[in-house]
């Protein structure tokens, strides 16, 4: 690094060009999803980078009226304790079964990784934070959509309570089933990204992710991870291993 470096508009422009060039070399940096040399993943990274370069970061998704709440299907894992479900995890499933029979009073959400104060929150702890209720549209990659009312605590509030370290860039969600996923810090701090414990005025039902799921309103439904157990804040991109979306052939970024 040049000690006398001065940020000029020209230099900013060149930096921009360099980072645009970085699109083509995606995978060399841990600040972007890896491509594994797969041309489809390169396209995904291009789409993700274009979204971050071209669109405002925090535009709000449309919110609807109570009258517009629609019927909604429950897909994917609909019961983490059911061994027949494809993302079933035996150990977590047994834990989930026990927590559910106690009305989730013993459930705790652990916040780990690059935060100043790692710790865990009970359902009552989360409900003590100021809540946000939003009536939004869930858009599934399959092609269907539905409108529901979601109540919860903004993820931003919880992360700030834990103290986000300045180097943190990603937030990963580990649920009770084997379907972890993550989002970048811009989406994590989005005002409509909430940890939802209520749906349509009641406790979140089990098929929709009880006791707590994340809602990411600017991406496809599969990013709104259900059955949260742990949240891990990270400096670098993590593909979350063999259960992560990437290694199963899915795009990590799902804003389209």
């Amino acid at each position, binding site marked *: 690094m040049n000690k006398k470096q001065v940020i000029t508009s020209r230099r900013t422009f060149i930096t921009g060009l360099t980072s645009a060039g970085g699109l083509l070399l995606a995978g060399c940096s841990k600040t972007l999803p890896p491509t594994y040399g797969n*041309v*489809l*993943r*390169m*396209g*995904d990274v*291009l*789409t993700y980078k274009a*979204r971050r370069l071209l*669109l*405002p970061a925090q*535009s*709000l*998704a*449309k919110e*609807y009226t109570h009258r*517009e*709440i*629609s*019927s*909604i*299907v*429950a*897909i994917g894992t*609909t019961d983490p304790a059911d061994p027949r479900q494809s993302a079933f995890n035996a150990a977590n499933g047994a834990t989930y079964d026990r927590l559910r029979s106690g009305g989730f009073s013993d459930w705790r959400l652990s916040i780990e990784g690059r935060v100043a104060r790692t710790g865990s929150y009970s359902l009552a702890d989360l409900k003590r934070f100021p809540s946000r209720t939003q009536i939004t*549209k869930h*858009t*599934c*990659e*399959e*092609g*269907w*959509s*539905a*409108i529901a009312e979601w109540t919860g605590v903004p993820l931003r509030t919880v992360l700030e309570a834990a103290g986000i370290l300045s180097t943190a860039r990603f937030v990963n969600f580990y649920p009770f089933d084997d379907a972890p996923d993550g989002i970048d810090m811009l989406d994590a701090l989005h005002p409509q990204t909430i940890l939802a414990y209520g*749906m*349509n*005025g*009641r406790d979140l*039902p089990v*098929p*929709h992710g009880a006791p707590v799921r994340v809602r990411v*309103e*600017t*991406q*496809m439904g599969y990013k709104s991870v259900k059955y949260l157990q742990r949240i891990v804040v990270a400096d670098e991109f993590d593909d979350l291993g063999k259960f992560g979306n990437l290694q*199963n*052939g*899915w*795009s990590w970024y799902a*804003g*389209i």
Partner: protein
Amino acid sequence: MAEGLLTGTIGDQACSPVVETQAALAGAGRLGSRELSRTGHTRWIRICHWIIAVSVLTLAFSGFFILMAHPRLYWGAVGNDLTPALLELPISRNYRHGGWQPSIPFFADAASPVSAVRTYDILNENSWGRSLHFLAAWFLVVTTAVYVLSGIFTGHARRDLVPGASELRPRLFWQDLVGHLRLHIQPTAGGPPYGLLQKCAYFGVVFVALPLMIFTGLALSPAIAAAYPILRDVFGETQSLRTIHFFSFVVLILFLVVHVLMVIMSGFKRQLRAMTFGN
């Protein structure tokens, strides 16, 4: 590029029924004999044509797989298996699969929205299907933008694609239509001037169907919809967008079939050579 400016070559060429000779001569009359001899397609048009062709085929292929995951179309913001469909397509095992647990209402009233758990293992190839679709869409969006803007600024669109005021007569449409239906397709050298229906078809694809496809596709993105609510105001909500996107696809496929048929009937090898290597 100068060549393009002089001869006004155009996107695509294919057919010219016999009844079109009048219009063809009228078009040729505006060009000097030197320019007339330089028929064919300019390089940028040939490149755009083939990139768009490959992109559209890839998009159609991946789009069909995406549609198979949920072969139901709706109107409005909302649509899923628990709401009525506008159209159900029997194109995969997901068609009316019926694998649902009993519905549970959210509210006490009789009209309450409901929820139901799916028990059926649907066909879903969207992992690669969606990524391939968006990769091909990048090529389509960029190339269509280049083509449309170049077409406008080189005068190529006005000269070769937009039907002239004197051509827009019911009698001429009728004549051209009858000529096509009787398959009176003359061998052509490739390139403009084009017949009346040919102009309308190319204009419709370039300035209506492809842009509609692109904008409804973009507006389907939750991120883009949040950033630009105007797309929702102009084109409608998610399920309307998806339905318009599908019918635009149908129109483009119909165009593609007729286009290829006309290319074959007007001299397949020569036409292919003209669109690939110029003349």
